[in-house]
């Protein structure tokens, strides 16, 4: 996932409210789009990434990279970015262990996508 959770939720809400809703002539559909935007805005401050789900490989990264890969306390968004930066630096000159970790990172993202699509 490239984009931050904050931006994704805010961006979807904004597009629904500012672009989709005004283009809908049916009042019922317009209300659906506007309300969906409002719900997303309400949910946004209560939602964070579940690091255990999106980065099950993070523990292994710490064992390879040491303290440099320690999570940033209480901030999943910053932790994800930090982990990926550390792994990316290792990957440039990567050994087999790092290659396996990179592989696990891609596979995890892929399997999350597969789950959301029911495949």
């Amino acid at each position, binding site marked *: *996932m*490239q*984009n931050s959770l904050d931006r994704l939720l805010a961006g979807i809400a904004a597009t629904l409210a500012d672009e989709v809703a005004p283009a809908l002539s049916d009042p019922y559909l317009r209300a659906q789009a506007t309300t969906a935007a409002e719900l997303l805005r309400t949910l946004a401050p209560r939602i964070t990434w579940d690091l255990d789900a999106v980065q099950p490989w993070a523990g292994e990264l710490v064992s390879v990279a040491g303290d440099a890969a320690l999570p940033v306390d209480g901030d999943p968004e910053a932790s994800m970015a930090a982990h*990926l930066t550390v792994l990316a630096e*290792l*990957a440039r*000159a990567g050994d087999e262990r790092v*290659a396996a970790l*990179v592989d696990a990172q891609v596979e995890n993202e892929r399997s999350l996508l597969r789950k959301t699509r029911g495949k």
Partner: protein
Amino acid sequence: MDALRRWLAARLGAADVAIEDLRRHVEGWSWETYTFTAVLPDGERIGLALRREPEDGLLAPYDIEGQYALHRALVSETALPMPRLRWLELDRGPLGMPFYVMDRVEGHVPVQWKPDDPVAFPDDAARTAIGLQFVDLLAELHETDPARLGYEAAADPEAAAVAEIDHWYERYDAHAVRRVPLLEQAVAWLHANVVTSGRSVVCHGDYRIGNFMLDGNGRINAVFDWELAHVSDPVEDIAWAALGLFRGRSPLWSHLLDESAFLERYEQRTGLAVTPEQLRFWTVLCYLKASATHVRAAHAFEHGRPDLRLAAMGHQLQYVLDGLRRELRAAREVVR
């Protein structure tokens, strides 16, 4: 609309021009494409297509004069099916950004997400016939002296390949919202495994299903989206057309021909026998190129562009990376 009408009237020497059937084509990620019919006061109808430079496109910076010159050269110097050019407008006044206008070509565009499209592919023979044309047109482009198209062939194809790795890495590097470890690994692999055919030609840069049109008789009557055209190894275009992104799990490259049929035909037309090593190198580079574009899309969304398709590209990056991972894995297996 009024601005376009006034601009067209001046170009066509008419007192006024009506515009009908205006349609914005949303398939593209970069240039904005519109088709419409210009209706003159005497009733004459002219089908036109307009390509406008985007304000903040994914492949900026743009060179509209270069695009126009290449298009004109392709019309005059090759047998590639290209629509007739009409006008180039560099002034931002009329439509906000530079644009050019060409004749509209009628037909049907097969796309990768409709592999069994009955209009494009009524049977296997029709699919194969289109595939052979697809290869022949690519060969036609690659066999044309770059100088005749306004380009200069690379004196050192290997150095040019290295420059291309660096180019796409820099694009990724400048726009990554988050680092992508697999791309770092891929770049290291590419630098250690440069293999070229030794040829230097004008490549289309985005040659695949979705970027050509068919007339009603199964003939390719237009090849479009030339904005990534550049001088490179011809294997780059072949590897791009073969990417899993454009064929899913099908063994048919771009849903047209399988590997052996594609490469055999290409060799017949150009004399170039593509090796597995060349194909792998360029496939990995093509995945880097595709990834860099997806990363840039996510970056544009992160920084305020409202188009949700850009955010979708950010997570669809995973499909590109999955293909890249398979390719790198296969390369490791070969070494073992």
